[in-house]
């Protein structure tokens, strides 16, 4: 009796383990399929979106680029929430670039801002576009604000220049011109044409 019962139990076990093995294999297969399916499309779509339509060679989130003068002091710093790098011409396109230029002697700061920018790493040249603002402050003359739509900042030659209309505002004057060139360290601006300035008494 006992033997019969035992044999029944063992064969029942064998049946059950076959079944268990079958279920395990099926489950594993389903998992692998799921993984494969979720792996392939999501990675390519996310990557494309992260990389952006211009297909840069690389991109940096919260990018900051610094350059230093011959004495090792910070001379310029440019940052952007997103910089897209293109290796062929060592160019970085920037969203909402914010820049800081420091005058050589007085270390007085020039603060730059724009909606878009393009930075050529080797040449240390930054082109700013759209809603370009330069704020400059000195002890002697207080704050001055310069507004234009296009500006090239050449940090190697330490000059800024544009052919666009420019407006310069400080506490007691407002000047408009078209075309301008500026020497950062000498703090000199040459206004190239159609100069129209107003001086207000305080």
């Amino acid at each position, binding site marked *: 009796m006992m033997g019969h019962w035992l044999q029944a139990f063992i064969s029942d076990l064998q049946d059950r383990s076959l079944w268990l093995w079958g279920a395990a294999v099926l489950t594993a297969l389903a998992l692998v399929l799921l993984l494969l399916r979720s792996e392939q499309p999501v990675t390519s779509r996310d990557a494309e979106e992260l990389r952006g339509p211009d297909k840069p060679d690389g991109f940096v989130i919260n990018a900051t680029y610094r350059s230093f003068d011959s004495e090792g002091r910070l001379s310029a710093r440019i940052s952007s929430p997103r910089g897209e790098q293109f290796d062929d011409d060592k160019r970085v396109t920037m969203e909402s670039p914010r820049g800081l230029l420091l005058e050589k002697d007085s270390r007085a700061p020039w603060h730059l801002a724009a909606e878009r920018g393009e930075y050529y790493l080797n040449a240390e040249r930054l082109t700013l576009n759209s809603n370009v603002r330069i704020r400059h402050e*000195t002890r*002697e*003359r*207080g704050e*001055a604000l310069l507004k234009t739509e296009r500006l090239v900042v050449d940090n190697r030659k330490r000059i800024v220049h544009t052919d666009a209309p420019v407006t*310069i505002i*400080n*506490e*007691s004057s407002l*000047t408009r*011109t078209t075309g301008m060139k500026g020497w950062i360290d*000498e*703090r*000199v*601006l*040459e*206004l*190239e*044409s*159609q*100069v*129209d*300035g*107003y*001086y*207000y*008494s*305080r």
Partner: protein
Amino acid sequence: FDLDSDNPIRIESKSARLDDKAGTATYTGNVRVTQGEARLEAQRIVLTRKEGELDSLDATGEPATYEQPETPDAPALYAEGNRIHYAAGEGLIVFERNALIRQAGDRFRGNRISYDLEKRVVTATSADDDDEDRVEMTIQPGKNRDNN
């Protein structure tokens, strides 16, 4: 020009050079400075600022000219010179080299003429280094001048 006036001083020119460290602005090419009706025209004007305020104007031209319209208490004035210097603090305009001032028919000519903007007084002098140089004055006999 009246620095206390609410009227801003306007400067127009072909080009300009702003030197922040030196506190100067040099305007070049058909330069015109206006405040209300007063007008200064020249080929080149150097404007100097002190503590952010206009301190002096130095105009040169062939000639540089200055015009001031008639006001309730003063007749219109026309003046010229190869150089015009305006010192804000002193309220004085000085015309040099071929200087000429015309006002209400009166005429002053000399190497150097200064005009006091407040007192409306004209002072003309000849060149120190040129004995031949003379000051010329032509005063129109005015109707309400004293009759003796």
